[in-house]
């Protein structure tokens, strides 16, 4: 395991040395990797760092407010409201890969503008060791701003946690007093709720996914999953009161994992599952049924798209 205090000192010195008196930008997602990278860079260069958080409208309930609070100590934090631009761009898009592409392009456009405004010479990224291996193997590209260096000619890219594994980054986060990033926020994918909606992303489906994810996170908290959420996977028939409903099917997922590479579907108590079902169907008029996903990874992935 990593010696956190020594790591923090070394990483801070390295960043300060590399960036000097220039300006840098970091895309802050609220996830543990970018949060740690941002906190280290902020220690190193203070307000020469502009952390940028883009609210895509695909965020979880309370996410943007949480970010604002957690990172209030960074005076240079920029929060960009880009909801309308993202939803417009996603309109009519149903293919999962196309969705990711549209969102990735959207991020690049937002950060291109912000980087120019901040007059940034350096890009700081929260790339971790497995990201590098997976990117080299072309399994998937990891960063929302992965294409940013192609549109902006940065002097350099700084990746302070590039040699760490996820659980080690979490240790460093704790040592940096970012406890709430580690304990109160589960892993959340870059494309946000868009990958928890099968088919086109609409405001209606986003509302269902956001509320349902919130219910799941609350109800499973005592079972301490590695990740838990709900996805809107289709439509089916139900009956509410004496009326037929053709409403959304919400799939609930709660998994145990060390590193996200493999995962076990949690053996949740029936009462917990029933409470989740009751709240999601009761609080959302247009949800017709709730199912629980019992598939491990492999063969399934953790997220749906």
């Amino acid at each position, binding site marked *: 395991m990593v010696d956190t205090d020594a790591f923090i000192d070394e990483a801070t010195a390295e960043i300060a040395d590399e960036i000097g008196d220039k300006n840098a930008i970091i895309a802050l997602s609220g996830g543990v990797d970018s949060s740690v990278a941002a906190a280290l860079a902020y220690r190193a260069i203070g307000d020469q760092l502009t952390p940028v958080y883009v609210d895509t409208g695909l965020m979880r309930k309370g996410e943007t407010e949480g970010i604002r609070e957690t990172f209030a100590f960074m005076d240079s934090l920029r929060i960009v409201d880009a909801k309308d631009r993202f939803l417009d761009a996603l309109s009519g898009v149903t293919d999962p890969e196309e969705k990711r592409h549209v969102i990735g392009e959207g991020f690049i456009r937002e950060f291109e503008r912000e980087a120019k405004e901040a007059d940034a010479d350096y890009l700081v990224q929260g790339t971790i*060791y*497995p990201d590098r*291996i*997976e990117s080299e*193997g*072309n*399994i998937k590209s990891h960063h929302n701003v992965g294409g940013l260096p192609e549109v902006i000619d940065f002097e350099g890219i700084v990746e302070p946690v590039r040699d760490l*594994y996820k659980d080690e980054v979490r240790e460093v986060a704790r040592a940096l007093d970012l406890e709430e990033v580690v304990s109160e926020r589960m892993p959340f994918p870059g494309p946000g709720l868009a990958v928890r909606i099968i088919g086109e992303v609409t405001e209606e489906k986003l509302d269902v996914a956001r509320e349902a994810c919130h219910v799941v996170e609350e109800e499973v908290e005592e079972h301490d999953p590695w990740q838990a959420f709900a996805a809107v996977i289709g439509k089916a028939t139900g009956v509410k009161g004496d009326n037929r409903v053709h409403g959304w099917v919400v799939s609930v997922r709660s998994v145990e*994992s*060390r*590193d996200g*590479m*493999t*995962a*076990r579907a949690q053996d949740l108590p029936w009462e917990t599952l029933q409470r989740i079902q009751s709240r999601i169907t009761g609080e959302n008029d247009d949800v017709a049924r709730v199912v629980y996903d019992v598939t*491990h*990874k*492999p*063969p399934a992935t953790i997220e749906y798209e």
Partner: protein
Amino acid sequence: MTRIVVVDNHGQFTHLEHRALRDAGVDTDIVDNTTPPEDLDVDGLVLSGGPDMDRIGRCAEYLEMDVPVLGICLGMQIMATQLDGAVDAGDYGGYADVTVRIVDADDPVVGSLAPETRVWASHADEVVELPTGFTHTATSDVCDIEAMSDADRDLYGVQWHPEVAHTEEGEELFANFIERCR
């Protein structure tokens, strides 16, 4: 220091094999599977898993280097096909939880896990014929040849993934293999 490198066959768990070795305290690295054998100054090799038998680079040559080799998933299937065994599509894909029964408790790499070990797997194909000189060392309900060994040449194959967190006793398997490399 004992040096064991991981040959990357483009598997999603390659970096976890690296981590298992690093955490066990050996000197390790991940190398491309096109690295010339003469550039590998090592005491042992791990052949990673991967998606495709057509992208195994120079793995066949690494089996001739006279150092212990641990083939994981596709890495084991490479051993079988490059020597004189055979691989075919299994009847039943092995995914996630599998209970493996050790059939050779004297095997240096999997023997100490006897009688049973719970593992995490992810494969459609499997070894259906052992190469000459190999012993069948483990089996399960979803895959007959879960592991094989040629202890004389120090070549070992396991169909499951000892490097992932959900495999019980994965660290012990790596420790056993590292002993063969010292």
